[in-house]
């Protein structure tokens, strides 16, 4: 780094960076996007491999015989469910007890902040039932969980039937070293949240539940089973959990290994793997699969019941049975054998799953992109922010340079008096707007319902959008109230602050949830890099709005639908967009998802700062 110590060379370097700033930024942006798109190209990715020794080399034999009986139990369960009109608690308790489990129940109630129109629920009241298979000669320190949600409609009965069948079979085996908890949770994620909070005796989300009576030590791994038909064509693995957390890659490897061994078609993101990576179609397929994972991860919501386990450092995944029009069908016995094999391997674990990756993307089940490979894509985008910041810094320091050689020592003095205030005011005001966006929609729903002919959910979503739009008008030229006319230097300082703020924000986000950070960077970075007050106002304003976080969300909705091969028209997409907003707010209050507060309290105010620069006078 003698480069920086030598003033002449430093000057040469900075002048190079300043002179070529725009081209370098453009190159960085394109390179970042290209790098990201290249991640799905098979030769650039790594093959998955089992890292955990305890699961890799040991062989287990799957002998589960009773698939037909499990389906009969499922039918019985369905009949009882219909009779009771909900979760057949008594029947389940009795059935589990007859299979030699220690059975406990937990009831819970939760009032949602506003009605959930997707799932049609508001005041939720339910019961979780779980049976513990006590491992012989084990001191109740470790456990595995197999869960099946009990849904109000007629789906997922087969999962409960298979769960009970496996419980009966597992009970008569001597080899268990960890207790196994068989959990049937009502109201899917809400029930799961209640059970997990009860098990760990915490209360993060204001759930009202009865304390658990039986426990089995620290849970090592969990699988959630979703199965709605007697035969299936393929099994789908769902990994994305709360706040974009992923289970250890070994869990995915384990699933894939057993699908291979038993001969079950397995998918991820509902997409089968293709062999032809060298053709355009094969590559597009891999990109689609990876993009779906990125979008799901970025959403920060749990995409299956397993998603909530991850917060408690429990590796978990959902296994979803899919019955399509394919010829080759797999019966319940085979799925039972697959789960048996997975549980026996998990039972062999000596330590928690920790050997393999926790940060990865999967373009297919056999290939993965590790954090070391995907981070440069984000790094290239983040570099743009730093380069622009450097450019501004040099520009701000230029008049000072005449008197003294060091680049930045004197120049804070020049912006000190009016500068701090002129920067602080927009920062404070845009953050207050963010706070309003975060708190008001839920708080003001009653007022909104009184005055407008809308439902509570619509009220919340529309209030959010209204505040979001109102924020565009609000903070213009706020600096003028305090410091008079905005100066040329003023907006530069503000932009410098906004750039660094955005860089820190996106950097931190990408470390926790790469997908979210990257998607936000794709739209926010060009906006942040280009915006100045000297551009054609109308056109730039339009571009800025199109690059705002809200619009990013809208594009994501459309892209997601497109990738899922269920394209939507504009009005449908708009409705979907509204429901995504309401789901985001609900996820935050029900499960503690952090995407909504992140967007409302940090990203949106940051974008407002950029907006403010555009209208600087």
């Amino acid at each position, binding site marked *: 780094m003698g480069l920086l110590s030598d003033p002449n060379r430093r000057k040469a370097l900075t002048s190079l960076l300043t002179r070529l700033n725009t081209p370098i930024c453009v190159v960085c942006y394109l390179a970042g996007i290209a790098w990201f798109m290249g991640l799905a190209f098979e030769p650039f990715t790594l093959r998955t491999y089992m890292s955990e020794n305890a699961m890799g080399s040991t062989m287990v034999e799957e002998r589960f015989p009773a698939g037909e009986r499990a389906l009969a139990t499922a039918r019985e369960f369905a009949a009882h469910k219909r009779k009771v009109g909900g979760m057949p608690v008594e029947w389940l308790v009795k059935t589990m007890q007859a299979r030699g489990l220690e059975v406990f129940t937990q009831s819970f109630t939760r009032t949602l902040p506003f009605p959930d129109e997707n799932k049609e629920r508001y005041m939720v009241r339910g019961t979780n039932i779980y049976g513990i298979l006590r491992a*012989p*000669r084990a*001191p109740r*320190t470790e456990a595995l969980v197999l869960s099946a949600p009990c849904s109000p409609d007629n789906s997922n009965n087969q999962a409960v039937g298979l769960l009970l069948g496996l419980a009966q079979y597992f*009970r008569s085996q001597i080899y268990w070293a960890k207790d196994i908890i068989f959990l049937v949770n009502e109201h899917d994620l809400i029930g799961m949240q209640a059970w997990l909070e009860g098990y*760990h005796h915490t209360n993060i989300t204001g759930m009202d539940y009865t304390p658990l009576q039986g426990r089995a*030590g*620290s849970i090592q791994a969990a699988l959630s089973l979703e199965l709605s038909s007697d035969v299936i064509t393929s099994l789908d693995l769902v990994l994305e959990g709360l706040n974009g957390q992923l289970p250890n890659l070994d869990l995915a490897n384990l699933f894939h290994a057993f699908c291979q061994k038993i001969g079950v078609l397995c998918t991820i993101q509902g997409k089968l793997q293709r062999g032809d990576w060298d053709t355009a179609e094969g590559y597009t397929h891999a990109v689609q699969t990876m993009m779906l994972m990125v979008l799901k991860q970025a959403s920060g919501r749990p995409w299956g019941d397993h998603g909530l386990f991850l917060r408690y450092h429990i590796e978990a995944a959902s296994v979803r049975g899919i019955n399509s029009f394919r010829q080759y069908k797999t019966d319940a016995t085979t799925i039972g054998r697959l789960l048996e094999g997975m549980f026996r391997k998990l039972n062999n674990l000596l*330590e928690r799953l920790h050997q393999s990756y926790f940060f990865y993307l999967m373009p297919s089940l056999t290939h993965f992109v590790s954090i070391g490979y995907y981070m440069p894509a984000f790094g290239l985008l983040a570099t743009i922010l730093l380069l622009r910041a450097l450019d501004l810094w040099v520009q701000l320091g230029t008049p000072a340079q005449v008197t003294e050689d060091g680049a930045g020592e004197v120049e804070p003095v020049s912006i000190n008096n009016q500068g701090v205030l002129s920067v602080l005011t927009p920062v404070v005001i845009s953050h207050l707007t963010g706070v309003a966006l975060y708190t008001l929609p839920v708080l003001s729903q009653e007022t909104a319902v009184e005055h407008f002919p809308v439902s509570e959910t619509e009220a919340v979503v529309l209030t959010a959008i209204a505040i979001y739009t109102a924020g565009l008008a609000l903070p213009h030229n706020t600096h003028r109230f305090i410091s008079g006319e905005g100066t040329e230097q003023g907006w530069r300082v503000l932009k410098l602050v906004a750039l660094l703020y955005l860089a820190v924000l996106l950097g931190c986000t990408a470390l926790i949830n790469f997908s979210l950070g990257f998607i936000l960077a794709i739209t926010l970075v060009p906006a942040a890099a280009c915006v100045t007050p000297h551009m054609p106002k109308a056109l730039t304003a339009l571009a800025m709005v199109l690059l705002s976080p809200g619009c990013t969300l809208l594009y994501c909705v459309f892209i997601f639908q497109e990738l899922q091969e269920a394209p939507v028209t504009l009005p449908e997409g708009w409705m979907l967009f509204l429901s995504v907003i309401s789901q985001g707010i609900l996820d935050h209050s029900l499960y503690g998802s952090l995407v909504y507060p992140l967007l409302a309290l940090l990203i949106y105010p940051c974008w407002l700062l950029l907006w403010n620069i555009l209208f600087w006078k």
Partner: protein
Amino acid sequence: MIFLKSSISTRWFWAPSAAPSSAAVSLPDSCEEELLIRPLHSGDIYASFQFRTLWDTDFLHQGKKVSHYRLFPKSLGQVLSKFSVRELHISFTQGYWRTMQWGQPIVPSPPGAELWVWFHNTVADVDGNWKELTNVLSGIFCASLNFIDSTNTVQPSASFKPLGLGNATDHRFLRYATLPREIVCTENLTPWKKLLPCGSKAGLAVLMKSEKLFHSSFHSQAVHIRPVCKDWQCSSTAWELRQTLNVVFDLYTSGQGKKEWSLFKMFSRTLTEACPLASSSKVYVDVTDNPEGELFDLSPATSVLNTAVVLGDRRTYSVYDLTQKETFGQLRSLNLVLRWKGESDMLRPLLHAERYVAGFGLQTGEIHTLIYNNHPYRAFPVLLLDSVPWYLRLYIHTLTVTSKTRENKPSYIHYQPSKDRLRPHLLEMLVQLPPHSVTEVTVQFERALLKWTEYTPDPNHGFYVGSSVISALVPSVVAMDTNNTQERPLFSSFFPTKEESSYFVRVYTEPLLVNLPTPDFSMPYNVICLTCTVVAVGYGSFYNLLTRTFQVEEPSQPLAKRLANVIRRIRGVPLL
């Protein structure tokens, strides 16, 4: 060992038909063996072996050396005399006793290994003796007792009173340690069996085949040594060695789901003889719930019944005396068969407890201990003992005890804070349990960061916290038998009873498995490289930039000019 074998053979030669009781009187030592079989309500079956060897010697009082051993194992006798042990209790357990389903055990024990020793009050260096003793016992029992050191040893002030003679109260001579992680298997069973007078060659011990004993839900083996009175006046004392082995066979995995048990099905052996050295050899079957034979069939039937007061309950037992020839019948072997006919209700045990860690994340947590008093109208006090390793830093100011949503102030608290890497936390409390209530004891803790050499080879497995111990005098429904010297089945005389209205119970909670913040040990090289690079390149140069001031140096003068200046200086003319 050689000596033991020869003693067996001599007995067979010279006293084949002598009545065992008379032989026991004439010889100084004696031994008894018994097996208690209790069908459990869950359909499982509980088998409890007890072997008692009495050793008539008094070396502690006279200080003389004892070199003659008959029935008492020499290895243990030497340990007793060398380390001046007054009382020694050691148990190895694989599994957790499910109090809610199985009721109270005859001899309670925590999962893993437990060792508590009272030393004689003449011992000067108790810690030194304790250290050596654990290492010796580690060799005798093929167990990792050598991992007992000051970081997991405590001196409970009230929970562990001597069970034998004497009323020592100075807990400086008591040491208590548990190893919750200890795995018990056949390598621990073999040395244990070798301590028996007949080994596993004859008597009840032939049933102890490890492939069956370890095909069970619960396995616990223990050795208890204590001084006892020989008669009711206590005119002379003897050492008692009590070896117990408790097994619970599972209805589903061992019994194929059929409620039908036999000695052969449990142990894959039948009984053919008593241990020739034993003065008494009996099999008891608990038939309390089955007075008319409506719950299960027991065959062969026996008319000999025995009642004993066990754990606050008067219970009836069918007795099979193996010293009598007719017990074995025509086939010359005894194979007890229990066939269930009906269902029975489960009895809730009066006292049970459970424990768990609450919270998530790797920084803090909370230990919750729940103690249930299921007695409908009687309150009783319990002593709770918690020994927590130092790397869980207990915040003792957060200790709360609540019963029925109200604060329940303990009447006695003994807390010894931990010292990092030296000793664990010790918390003892006397808590009054209201009738029909749950008492919750919570305390928060912080997880310490260990030094990198202090992690176990499998750090991601987690770290164990031993069971808490709850000792209580539970109000008894029936009058307890306070005469401790009278002839009674062995299983009913383990804990001495001092008063008629209550009986002593010890309950262990489950151990805890706690994850500590763990570095990624697989990449120290990467970390070292990265750190060094960052420090050298990044930090160094920035530090350099921040601390130095830079000035533009005059470009160096050309050689000709310098030469000219030298000449000018010599001439005394101003420089160029």
